[in-house]
């Protein structure tokens, strides 16, 4: 083999609309075209799913260099290979690029094909756009403007199909809008491993449905709504609530488990309307679970704590922030370190945890830990660890034991009266088994929280804080990836960003110097915690950085039939790794640093 062919297998030369490009072997033609700046419209193709090639929207012209008698490409007058174009258009979503391949994405034939497919898709499509949720992000609407005709030649009755079909608790289907692309079916089979959707009947009467006895109710069902290219599948939750073009989008992460799926928070005027997954192959591919997606309503709850409050003559009375902080500091300073307990949370950001650790240090507190949160996970995304930042707590709180291990000891210390001052950060003390009467007896019971609960009434100082969508900060997910939260909405009432509360408290107890912004806090962490060295909040970027040496799971892979075996293998590995992590969570999680 000559030197030149040594590298050849990795890249293919492909001509897209007359210009030659190089693409790695294995690139789908449709992706290659997009990279070359020629977007090919598509409905059924989804890069993380298998390719059935059924919508025919991605037809392009394809050709290969004409080979001379010596099996070498014949060159034209311009010195470039002469292309033999195939007489028929080809779909671009199911083939990988090949050496010498040439494609045309905007020739008259291609445009004619696109116009034809658009016309076919629209003839039986209801004219629902004004009342359709998908309007504004509908591929049918977009492409019919870009590739279709304005006038309908269809003079017949449209095929009638079921409307408002409740496919499951969270997903509603309008079959007349469905273009039968099968994306949702493939998602359920290939990603959610819950084969509940299917087509019944035949031809133009084909209808998407679930068996009446087994509905679409898996924890990933709302992803089908995301990938449905039209408004056929809608989120029962989001339906008719808001036109999507009014929504402001904020890139953030889900904080409902240790996976930390990347998200987009859709908001308008400080109200969250929905969360949708944001692609990140290191974390969640293109998906997120329904539980995490819908777990934001508590931020709009009427249980929200809106004002700082101080106990005065047995009752909680609203006050201003400086007085509340001063009061909290005053109460804490009356006790020695061993008399104080701090219960922090695995839902706090790294910045908040660091400030908490500083607070503990300056008060000399030993009794500090987070509340562990373990529930059944799955093989897909949902982690058993429902705390989004256990790894952050492990690194930053500087404890030698596993996060959560000391919790019960702290509770016992409260019960035995050894601990007299308790600081609760974003957790509910009710789960700790400390009798309410006893909490009520505590001379200092400082609570930083979002919602009120039974224990709130017993607090001596209540400091209303922010939820995940109301603040910035960083967390480390279960696989050791440092990721960023961003603020989508402002907190209600007088609630304040947690890091500011903690900073002020820290300064008030006399332990802090000037920390003007959350970036300053992060800088401090990067100076003291080796895994953060060299990083800043902005350097984390939208997709995060890997900072803990843990076995990173292979990304959720497209389960393409051509690569079925590969996909199965990946699946198996993933399961095996999860099992390992499950069996030896500590060993694997602590890492080598």
């Amino acid at each position: 083999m000559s030197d030149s062919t040594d590298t050849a297998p990795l890249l293919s030369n492909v001509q897209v609309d007359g210009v030659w490009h190089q693409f790695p072997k294995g690139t789908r033609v449709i992706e290659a075209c997009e990279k070359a700046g020629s977007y090919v419209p598509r409905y059924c193709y989804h890069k993380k799913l298998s390719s059935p090639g059924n919508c025919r929207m991605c037809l392009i012209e394809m050709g290969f260099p004409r080979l001379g008698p010596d099996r070498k490409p014949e060159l034209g007058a311009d010195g470039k290979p002469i292309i033999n174009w195939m007489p028929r258009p080809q779909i671009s979503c199911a083939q990988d690029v090949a050496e010498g391949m040439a494609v045309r994405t905007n020739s008259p034939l291609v445009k004619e094909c696109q116009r034809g497919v658009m016309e076919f898709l629209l003839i039986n499509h209801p004219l629902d756009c004004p009342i359709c949720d998908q309007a504004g992000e509908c591929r049918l609407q977009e492409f019919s403007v870009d590739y279709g005709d304005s006038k309908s030649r269809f003079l017949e009755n449209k095929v009638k199909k079921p409307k408002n079909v409740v496919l499951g608790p969270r997903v509603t289907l309008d079959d007349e809008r469905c273009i039968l692309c099968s994306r949702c079916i493939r998602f359920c089979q290939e990603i959610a491993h819950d084969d509940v959707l299917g087509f019944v009947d035949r031809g133009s009467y084909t209808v998407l449905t679930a068996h009446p006895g087994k509905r679409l109710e898996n924890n990933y069902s709302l992803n089908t709504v995301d990938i449905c290219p039209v408004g056929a599948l809608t989120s029962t939750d989001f339906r008719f609530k808001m036109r999507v073009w009014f929504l402001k989008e904020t890139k953030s992460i889900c904080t409902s488990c240790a996976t930390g799926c990347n998200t987009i928070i859709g908001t308008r005027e400080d109200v969250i309307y929905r969360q949708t997954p944001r692609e990140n192959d290191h974390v969640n591919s293109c998906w997120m679970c329904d539980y995490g997606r819908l777990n934001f309503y508590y931020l709009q709850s009427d249980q929200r704590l809106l004002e700082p409050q101080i106990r005065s003559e047995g009752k909680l009375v609203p006050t201003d922030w400086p007085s509340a902080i001063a009061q909290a500091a005053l109460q804490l300073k009356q006790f020695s370190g061993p008399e104080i307990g701090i219960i922090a949370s695995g839902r706090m950001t790294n910045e908040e945890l660091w400030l908490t650790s500083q607070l503990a240090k300056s008060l000399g507190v030993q009794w500090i830990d987070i509340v562990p949160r373990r529930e059944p996970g799955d093989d897909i995304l949902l982690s058993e660890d429902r705390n989004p930042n256990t790894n952050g707590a492990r690194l930053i709180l500087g404890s030698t034991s596993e996060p959560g291990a000391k919790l019960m000891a702290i509770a016992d210390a409260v019960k035995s009266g050894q601990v007299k001052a308790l600081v609760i950060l974003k957790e509910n003390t009710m789960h700790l088994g400390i009798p309410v009467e006893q909490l009520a007896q505590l001379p200092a019971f400082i609570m930083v929280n979002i919602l009120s609960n039974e224990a709130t009434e017993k607090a001596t100082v209540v400091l209303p804080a922010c939820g995940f969508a109301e603040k910035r900060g960083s967390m480390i997910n279960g696989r050791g990836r440092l990721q960023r939260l961003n603020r989508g909405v402002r907190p209600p009432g007088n609630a304040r960003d947690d890091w500011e509360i903690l900073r002020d408290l820290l300064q008030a107890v006399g332990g802090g110097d000037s920390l003007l912004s959350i970036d300053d806090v992060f800088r401090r962490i990067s100076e003291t915690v080796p895994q953060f060295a060299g990083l800043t909040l902005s350097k984390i970027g939208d997709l995060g950085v890997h900072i803990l040496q843990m076995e990173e799971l292979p990304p959720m892979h497209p389960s393409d039939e051509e690569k079925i075996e590969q996909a199965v293998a990946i699946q198996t590995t993933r399961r095996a790794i999860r099992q390992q992590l499950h069996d030896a969570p500590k060993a694997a999680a602590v890492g080598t640093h």
Partner: protein
Amino acid sequence: MDAAIGLYPQDHRRSAAMPLLHLWQEHFGFISDEAVLWIAEKLGLQPINILELVTFYPMFRQQPAGKTHIRVCCTLSCAMAGSFELMENLCADLGIQHQSDGEGIHNPIAVSADGNYSVEFVECLASCGTAPVCMIGEQLYEKVSPESAADILLNPQSAIRNPQFHSPHPLEHRLTFKNIGRADWTTDIDCYLHDGGYEQLKQGLTMSRSDIVNKVKNSGLRGRGGAGFSCGLKWSFIKPDEKRPVYLICNADESEPGTFKDRYIVHYDPHQLLEGILISCYALNAHTAYIYVRGEFPVGAKILERAIEEARAHNFVGKNILGSRFDTEIYVHRGAGAYICGEETGLIESLEGKRGYPRIKPPYFPAVLGLYMCPTIVNNVETLCHVKHIIAMGGAEYARLGRPNNTGTRIVCVSGDVQRPGYFEIEVGAVTMGQLIYEMAGGLRPGRKLKAVIPGGSSAKVLRADERFKLKRRQTDGSTVEREISIDEILMDFDSLTAAGSMAGSGGVIVLDDSRDMVWVLNNINEFYAHESCGQCTPCREGSLWMKKITDRMLRGGGVVEDPETLKTIGDNIAGRTICAFGEACAWPTQSFVEKFSEEFAARAQKPVPPPLPPEYTPEELIERDEISIAPLAHDPGWEKAGTAGTI
């Protein structure tokens, strides 16, 4: 039931779904909800997987039929011979209201008040030469004139089914049909052995595999299923050192309207087919062969199963065949009324227990990624029978039959407006269209003139009787000359019919005389394709029904001026842009009819504006009127536990 499951590889039990559905329906009369759940459970599938099948395959019904179920063919040849009147008469005699199957394909079954009888229109039953036909229970009744409806009902047993055979015409060359219609012929293996049967299998087993493949290559045999692809070339795609199992599938789904040849082989000469399959299996090193026989051949399936057992008893099937140390099993798999399962990849999906959705090629070329993602060869019944004769004659000798590149014999099926419809085995290209129609098929009925011919199954482009065809002929010195010929002079072979702008297809020749209304004919064809489109890909799914709706409206007097042009462009937008060749199959008739009979279409399309449509309602109104179903809410306590609001 467990026996049925045992016919498929352990890790592909899903394949048994259709056999189980058949068994259930035979026993209980229809597929109940319970059946769906039970079968899904039995095979470790989800209920939706079974529901998808029940609603895809028209033969499975979700409501009970009558004690006697009558299926009347409504496709072109039968419709021309009066099957619609037959249906009317049957309904009148039985007191059944058969609502005309307007829109929607579902539940066209109509049951008599006493539950004794039910009737149903079905698509071509592959007996177009003896039109009109119907099936009563599992039995086919041929040449059932509309007037005889009462007779067959009164006395189904005495109206004995009379297979319609005819002795060979002098222009015929019988090879595969040698024994069809012989008075002394039975399907018993002894009869076949007595005739020299299985000698070629014995001979083949002594030859090397490549030897057989080469013989088939040299014979020039082209597939008889429709595409006319070189059989030897197809076989050579299988690597001799292939590690994965190789499968051979015999395509006995014969359902292209106008085609009725495989039916005769399956029903009257099953051992010839088995011998062809066994030789082919040996040549391809395939240890498993499936015969995918269309669901409407229940008797044929039983005959094949019996033949396989007979062959096993003689050690032609099974382990160590005739001491050759070669093993092969042959299984019969029944379809259930879906035309698209004749398309080879649709067939493979169906055999895997799924909806018969054709696969995209690339990457799913059957020879590479076929059944169970293993290399697979799909061949037509007739093609496989020829293999036996190629072994008998030798490849080169066989290639002398017919014309270069169009070798051997093939069965041409003539139906429609001729006096003696039926099958004729000819040397390919040795007979002209004129000879076929006027000499062999007895010409048109008295006083009638030829109007058009559909030469290769209803999907082939129509040829007009007064058309002139410019055909290039290669001279012996290599030069080509162009000759203009009439329809009568077209040679009945692959290349000539292609040159005439149509195709030899499946060999089904449908003759239309001057009494036929071409819009009516096209509408019947469109009805077939709209009904049979699998619905997977956009152009065919939407276009086939659209074309049918237009021709339907034209027939009812509502044709508008733009209709012919619209029809043509719909066809243009389908052909060449679909997953499978069904796209062409459904577009070609429309394209060619509208182009070649433009005056008839224009005459039917004179309205300036379309007739008003029945009123459209908003979805909400329709829901109110109960015309649209709203599925009930499923309750899901599990999820609510996992994460309702406020889990904080």
